[in-house]
């Protein structure tokens, strides 16, 4: 699963730290999500969607290997 959290975050001009504080995780977790090292849970996905004011589908998309 790929995501464009970084692009959306930079578009609204907030830092990883600010986003992490908004959704209640560490900055390292935001970094891991943005770099694709970690696929967040549904709860975190919904929180990210709310924090970035974007629908889930525009933040995350399936890749070929996801089936």
């Amino acid at each position, binding site marked *: 699963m790929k995501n464009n959290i970084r692009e959306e975050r930079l578009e609204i001009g907030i830092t*990883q730290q600010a986003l992490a504080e908004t959704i*209640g*995780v*560490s*900055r*390292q*977790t935001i*970094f*891991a*999500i943005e*770099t694709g*090292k*970690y696929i*967040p*849970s549904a*709860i*975190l996905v919904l929180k990210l969607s709310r924090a970035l004011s974007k629908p889930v589908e525009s933040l995350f998309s399936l890749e070929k290997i996801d089936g």
Partner: protein
Amino acid sequence: MQRSFLLPYRFKPIGAVMMPVGLFIWIWSQLNLSESKLSTYLNGLEPTNIHLIKVTILTISFFSCLLGMFFLVFSKEKEEDEYVADLRLKSFQLAAFVQMTFFLIAFLYMFLFKKEPSGDAGLELFLIASIFLFWFSYISCFQFSILKNKLQANEE
């Protein structure tokens, strides 16, 4: 959210000190602390008391190592979230894999070369080593993953 039964973060630094210190003293005492050496340091004590002192040192150091390991493994990170929980799970899986591989190789070696741990002490040592191997693999893998991600995130 899942409820966590982990200890507060303040136990982690305590464990990080207790475990290596306890382990070092235990290994050092096993290798170097003989009762004859102790009797020269503690002149005039009965041999039974000297034996008791050695056993006490070994017991305290071993249990402080175990307790330190417990604190290290079962205490929260400074910022505990689902990513850390995921790393914890992956580290447990790796530790289980390492221990199972160790068992397989060890038993295969014993079977092929007809070499079994000699006596109760040998068997005890073998089992302690396999338990420690599991927890050491877990701690190293978990701490390495956390540190690696932290460093990469800070590089940005």
